[in-house]
């Protein structure tokens, strides 16, 4: 093998990884691929910090009386939520895979604003450092939702510092979104029309719209919270003429759309994996593309479903309930189209595809239970119970984290130039799937039976299901540690990857060397065929 010419050439070639050495070449880089790696390592670190808090909670819930004091437990779930949502899930796929792949997929040399891209990473790190400081100084106990008036008046923990951390990192999210929007509008290669964009790019475009339009609102809301806490401005605190429900409106105006920031990029990854391992064009390309935009837009009209029992007018609740049902339609369109893509395809079961299967099943359960919750009468029963916890973990962990891992495996050869060990990876995917379901399925039942969320203690009859959940969490933890180990190994010692190990379509595989050179392409790519042209048709002709 070592005398095989193209391989020898690959070895000698300079790419973005060996173009330059030393810490300065990383910390001052403007290469989107290197920034993607900076993000990758940082968010992985935050993922394990957030995970450590989850371990604390699950250990506490092994017995009805728990082991931590109530105050400590409140801090555990708050810091778990804040780290996982703002410092892991929001940047997870966009800032890593999106950063790496959007320019490659559209045939560009970099993002439109490479230095702003670097700035976004620095803002993320500064925000993260501030939040970690708050944690080290004793933490915060308001829940990731920061509800007033507890956060604005009564909590005696580090609310302001944490809010500043979230505020600063919000700007990193805005800058990423802005960069993607401009890049996708202005830097597509000749022939890369909107109708030929990979759905990964469409998904990131929709995500970016939400980031740019929604994030400023959470920023302002946190500023108002600070004003209220320090100056008693009378915005949220009823004691001085404010309204706490207003806080919930403002918070969820961002945070419901933000849950789509946390799932659209996952859908974007799945839309790439499924055609590749089914050897078929994605079914209903236009519908899937438009449904991403529809989710982004409709997602802004449903936030009131978080306020059903908060004192919101019942007429507003009815409207929000109805609109919440509508937002399920574009999500369902995607699920049906992925399934239809696999129909009669020649499916193979590499690790990314296993994660894609996991995603489809778990996201569907998460989405459908969302509809339960959007039903007024059911929500009154299960709101603030473990049913809600299970609902969103099925989407965020079962969906998004699965998609993230699937994407990391799929593009690992592209990013590192090495192959990962397929057997270990399949084994880890299985462990993650089993561990996940054992952790979170019992929580649906617990919630349905009435176990409230955010309490350190619980009645003894709930113990069996809680022990199951903690057991599942331990398995899940193993499933997450395994990829760190074998991917870390493969990065240094894995076999060299050919340019296109999956025989996948797309500029990043077909026209860019593996790993890519600093400016991505050796010659300007020109696009002459639709996306996912696995059947090899030369023009966009229909069936026939």
């Amino acid at each position: 093998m070592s005398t095989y010419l193209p391989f020898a050439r690959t070895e000698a070639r300079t790419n973005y990884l060996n173009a330059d050495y030393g810490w300065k070449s990383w910390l001052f880089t403007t290469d989107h691929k290197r920034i993607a790696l900076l993000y990758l390592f940082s968010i992985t670190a935050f993922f394990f910090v957030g995970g450590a808090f989850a371990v604390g909670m699950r250990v506490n819930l092994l017995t009805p009386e728990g082991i931590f004091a109530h105050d400590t437990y409140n801090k555990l779930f708050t810091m778990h939520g804040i780290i996982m949502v703002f410092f892991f899930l929001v940047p997870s796929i966009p800032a890593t895979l999106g950063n790496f792949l959007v320019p490659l997929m559209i045939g560009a040399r970099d993002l439109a604003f490479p230095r702003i891209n670097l700035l976004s990473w620095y803002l993320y790190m500064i925000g993260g450092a501030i939040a970690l400081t708050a944690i080290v100084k004793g933490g915060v106990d308001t829940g990731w939702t920061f509800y007033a008036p507890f956060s604005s008046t009564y909590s005696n923990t580090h609310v302001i510092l944490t809010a500043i951390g979230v505020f600063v990192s919000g700007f990193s999210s805005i800058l990423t979104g802005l960069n993607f929007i401009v890049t996708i509008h202005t830097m597509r290669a000749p022939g890369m029309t909107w109708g030929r964009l990979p759905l990964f790019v469409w998904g990131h475009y929709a995500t970016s719209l939400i980031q740019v339009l929604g994030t400023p609102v959470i920023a302002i809301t946190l500023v108002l919270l600070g004003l209220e806490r320090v100056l008693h401005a009378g915005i949220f605190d009823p004691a001085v003429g404010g309204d706490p429900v207003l806080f919930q409106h403002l918070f969820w105006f961002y945070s419901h759309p933000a849950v789509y920031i946390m799932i659209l990029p996952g859908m974007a990854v799945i839309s790439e994996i499924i055609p590749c391992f089914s050897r078929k064009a994605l079914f209903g390309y236009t519908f899937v593309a438009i449904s991403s935009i529809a989710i982004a837009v409709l997602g802004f009209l449903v936030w009131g479903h978080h306020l059903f029992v908060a004192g919101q007018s019942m007429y507003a609740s009815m409207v929000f309930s109805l609109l919440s049902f509508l937002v399920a339609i574009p999500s369902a369109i995607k699920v049906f189209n992925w399934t239809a893509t696999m129909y009669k395809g020649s499916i193979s079961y590499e690790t990314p595809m296993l994660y894609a299967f996991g995603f489809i099943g778990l996201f569907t359960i998460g989405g459908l239970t969302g509809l339960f919750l959007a039903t007024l009468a059911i929500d009154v029963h299960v709101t603030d119970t473990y049913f809600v916890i299970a609902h969103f973990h099925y989407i965020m962990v079962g969906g998004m984290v699965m998609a993230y891992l699937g994407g990391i495996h799929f593009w690992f050869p592209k990013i590192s130039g090495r192959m990962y060990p397929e057997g270990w990876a399949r084994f880890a995917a299985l462990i993650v799937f089993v561990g996940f379901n054992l952790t979170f399925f019992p929580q649906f039942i617990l919630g349905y039976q009435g176990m409230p969320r955010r309490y350190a203690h619980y009645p003894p009859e709930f113990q069996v299901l809680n022990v199951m959940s903690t057991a599942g969490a331990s398995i899940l933890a193993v499933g997450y540690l395994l990829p760190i180990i074998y991917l870390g190994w493969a990065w240094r010692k894995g076999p060299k990857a050919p340019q296109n190990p999956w025989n996948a379509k797309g500029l990043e595989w077909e026209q860019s060397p593996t790993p890519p050179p600093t400016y991505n392409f050796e010659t300007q790519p020109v696009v002459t065929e639709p996306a996912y042209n696995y059947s090899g048709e030369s023009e966009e002709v229909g069936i026939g």
Partner: protein
Amino acid sequence: MTHPVVPIKTYAAVFGALLALTITTVAVSKLELGEFNFVAAMTIAVIKGTLVVMFFMDVRRATSLTKLIVGAGLFWMAILFVFVLSDYASRGWLPGPRWF
């Protein structure tokens, strides 16, 4: 770039206008206008915002795409206000007579 440079005088004039409006805001807040205190303060704030967007951010002479983005931002803010206010407006409504 392609557009002519804006004379410093224009920026100075806008800056002066912003200062004057700020003083007006403070002055108006001292008057007892009841509900209209709020209306006045908001009107002045909107005028100030418009000046900043049009002159300092130069949207006045920007491309239609930029204007579209600005418009989308305002529309999104309108969604926030309309839905939140519709909650406040209808909170006191009691269920009507049942006819079924």
